[in-house]
């Protein structure tokens, strides 16, 4: 399942759905998902509702997204993570950088 991204809330929110497996094989796809970011975007949501597992390279990819977009004033959230995936985010203290819902 590929990564899909869509705009919501009149183009202000970009939602990136990373699919079932979030690991290094998604490096390219994930970067493309926020590559040509609309000018109105003020928030990026990473939707993990379908994600079965993630590894440290996925964590790296999330942080790299923030670094790449550091010049834009954006807020970020990670949403709908399943319990075992949420545990990885918690262990890595990602709540400090992302709003985890």
């Amino acid at each position, binding site marked *: *399942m590929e990564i*899909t991204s869509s705009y919501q809330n009149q183009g202000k929110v970009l939602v990136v*759905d990373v*699919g*079932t*497996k979030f*690991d*290094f*094989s998604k*490096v*390219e796809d994930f*970067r493309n998902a926020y590559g040509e970011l609309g000018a109105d975007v003020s928030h990026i949501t990473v939707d993990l*509702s*379908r*994600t*079965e*597992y*993630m*590894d*440290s*390279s996925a*964590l*790296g*990819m999330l*942080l*790299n997204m923030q*670094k*790449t977009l550091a010049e834009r004033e954006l807020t970020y959230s990670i*949403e*709908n993570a*399943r*319990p*075992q*995936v949420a*545990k*990885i985010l918690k*262990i*890595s*203290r990602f709540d*400090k*950088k992302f709003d985890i819902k």
Partner: protein
Amino acid sequence: MKILIVDDEAINRTLLTNMLYNAGYKECIEAVDGVEAIKKFTHEKPDLVLLDVVMPGLSGFDVAPKIRKLAKGPYLPILFITALEDKESLVRCLEVGGNDFATKPFDRHILIAKIRAHLKIRALSEHIEQQNKALRLFNQRVAREHAIVEHIFSHAIVNRPEVMAHFDCFLKPAETFNGDLFLCESSPSGGIYFVVGDFTGHGLASAIGALPVTRAFQELSQQGVSISEIISELNRILIKFLPSDMFMAAVVGEINAGGNRINLWQGGMPAVIVPAKTDLALRCIPSRHMALGILDEHELNTDCDTIQLGCNEQLVICSDGLIESTTQEGEMLLEEGLVRIVKEQMQTHGKIESNSLFLKAKEHCAASSFHDDVTLVVFTSQPIKTPVSPKMDFGLPSVHEVALDAQHLKQPDILQRVLQLAGQCEGIQAVRSIIYTVLSELFNNALEHGILKLDSKLKADSTGFHQYYENREASLKALSHGRINIRIESLPLKGKVLIAVEDSGEGFEWNKASTVGRRHSVHDESFGRGLPLLHALCERVWFENGGSKVICLLDTKI
């Protein structure tokens, strides 16, 4: 065709016999009076009776009802031959059981024509009789087969009562077999998976699809996979098993252990309702997808909705049988009508109860029975209390070992295949995702650092991050030597999994390396979090062979 001629006068009998013989009815039998007529009728079983009215002893009027009584099976024509011409006598002929009459002296053509007509009716009647017999046999066979299939169904499609207890269900099939389906199973992480399905049509044909769906659902539930994986698998099965005009609308959901968050995939079903007393608070979540069994794998969208339930909030799921119930005027209830009833029920009772919701919807419906199966499932937010299945308590211990050489490592899906292997271990379901993460971590470390000798520090800035993965691809492509051994040992009885990954690289100074991880506790570096993550996820992590072998011990109990 055998014809019985009853007449006390020999001349009449001979006349009739000859006439019939010439007309092609060569098998005629004669009786001289009523008593002999009854006797011969019983023995010879004629197809038609020609009966004189006036005879000594029993008259034709006496004989006709007796013969009629003896005649079993198809239509038996009794034709009176009579010299009487008064209306009453002729009417009586028909009243006592005759089918027709011919007056003496009879016209040959008319009599033969009448006999032909009546024998034709008898032939038709015989034909119908045979068909009825065949139909009766067929019905008996179908009833027996249904009984067998029903037995199989009732044993195959069973929800565990302790899981079922979390739902308030109303299931009403339109026929013996249900085209609707409700399945629920506890998830290894303490929640519940469920499926509310509605196959096209109803009856046996649509129920047949329920078997493979049930089996797959139960297996996947035990593995604790994501909803999107369940959706993909059910879709694959339905496309494979069902003819193309059959499919299954479905709501598939996963309730978390707290019972207040539901991941929901809906395809082709009426909107699910989170009831409330007011328009503003009531939530309707419509289906976003097509039913399962229609789209090919690459067209299928497995996006889910996540629904948060507040304290005592409910989720109402129904099949279209309910909202398509119609009034006498042919007006359907539809989603709007159901929402209206839900609101009324909330105002009167403060909660939704499936049975009374059904009864209210039924009041709307004119006909006493619904045309389609009706399924109503209500879940009230509550912490899930389900005992784990015995398979998890007494899982089989197992060891999986894989030795991968350079050719294997080049396969793009190699990690997925190794993960799949690990996923087959019994007793690991509760931590399946965690095991995937650990294994993925160990594998990538072994490959990227042990064999490809890439430097993580490259990942420090954004350009380098992608440079790193480009380097990885290039080095992997050029790789000619290298080996990674993976050993996954599952010990369900102890609740442990041991994962060892060894590579053919030179190893590394792991003491130093793990401190590197700790030094970067700032948590905003996009590298160096692999090892700390392993330490946090595993009960124990240790290194052997100078760092070229890593062993992780995991606890499989939450």
